[in-house]
């Protein structure tokens, strides 16, 4: 319970900084928008084709937006290394994972839905820890995140498609699968985050 309280305090700090700078949301809109625009251009003007591919295209754009938000939030921990101070002070280091997940999830949920936000957030925060502070982290982050998000992406796309064609009952299966994926990623993150994020 204490870890959850700590996580809320950490998330509030991250969101407060984002509210003051709006850097993460700006990065997400730019990245997601660019992907959406380029994919629409690639598909062409055929409305039937666009309609069929729309759910996948939107979710790919959202995946890139999630990576963009995740990267910007993680950057906060790398300027002047506040993470080292929190790492040493934290009584329960799972709170560091949960705090980052809550901050990222809160930003994602506004545009992408609860289950996606939880699954994508859990993967992104864990990937940040795995990638660490390597010089090529900006390149590595999407390389690590996107394959991990692929099942979630396909599931979310399936749910969207069912909703778009007016068969909400068909969306229940994918949504259930999405919930399972979110729970799995969250559990995995809580288990391995401390080892993955340990400095050097």
């Amino acid at each position, binding site marked *: 319970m204490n870890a959850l309280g700590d996580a809320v305090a950490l998330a509030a700090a991250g969101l*407060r900084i984002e509210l003051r700078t709006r850097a993460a949301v700006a990065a997400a809109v730019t990245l997601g928008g660019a992907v959406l625009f380029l994919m629409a251009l690639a598909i062409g003007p055929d409305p039937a084709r666009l309609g069929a591919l729309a759910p996948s295209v939107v979710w790919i754009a959202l995946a890139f937006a999630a990576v963009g938000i995740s990267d910007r939030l993680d950057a906060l921990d790398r300027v002047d290394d506040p993470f080292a*101070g*929190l790492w040493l*002070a934290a009584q329960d280091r799972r709170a560091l994972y949960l705090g980052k997940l809550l901050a990222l999830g809160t930003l994602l949920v506004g545009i992408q839905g609860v289950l996606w936000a939880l699954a994508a957030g859990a993967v992104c925060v864990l990937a940040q820890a795995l990638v660490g502070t390597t010089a090529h982290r900006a390149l590595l982050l999407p390389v690590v995140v996107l394959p991990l998000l692929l099942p979630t992406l396909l599931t979310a796309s399936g749910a969207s498609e069912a909703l778009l064609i007016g068969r909400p009952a068909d969306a229940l299966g994918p949504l259930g699968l999405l919930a399972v994926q979110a729970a799995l990623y969250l559990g995995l993150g809580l288990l391995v985050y401390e080892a993955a994020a340990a400095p050097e």
Partner: protein
Amino acid sequence: MSVPLAPLAPPPTRNSVALQAVGVTKLYGHTIALWRVELTATSGELVAVHGPNASGKSTFLRIIAGLTAPTTGRVVWAGVAGAPAPRIALVGHASHLYGGLTPIENVALTARLARRDQRVGLELLERLGVARVSASLCRDLSAGTLRRVALARALAADPDVVLLDEPFASLDAAASVATAEMLEHLHATGRLVFYAGHDEARTRGLATRVIELDRGRIVADRRPGPSGVGAVASV
């Protein structure tokens, strides 16, 4: 301005600890940062780690903190049986502060994670003479002010072990005295304190023990006698 020091409310029982560095070596590629460092230190010591640039001071402090793994050797903490692991705080070359938060927000966050009363934040900022900037964003503060806020943030966790890398860098005379007084206070309240620096004259008389590093090796380990803040004030 710093405020006169009244005793901080110490916890009822401070975690008494003993540090043992056993054959600690750190290599960065072919560069030797530390070479077979052996050291023991216990709560109540105020240890100055002196040495020229690239002598291994910062690496040694980070290894003690557990933020950098030694290439070989290890750091062992001993304490009272059954006592929790020592709480360690480090102020390195980085401030370890979020630039987009205010000093009071940064300090309160650390206090919260350490399960300490968050109201201690303002008290620490006052003691270090930086309470007047407590509502400014850290990214807007001067280097000297930031050093003191960073120290306040580290102390908000009520650490048993305090590691400070060049705590007097960028400080003017008054701020140096406030910082030296805080070091004295930390020492007097039974903590194990390490601070690294090049300028021995500036802090002469403060440390109870002086370790000199040169090219990653301990070349001297001495106990200069009674400590005192006056030495800093007179520089």
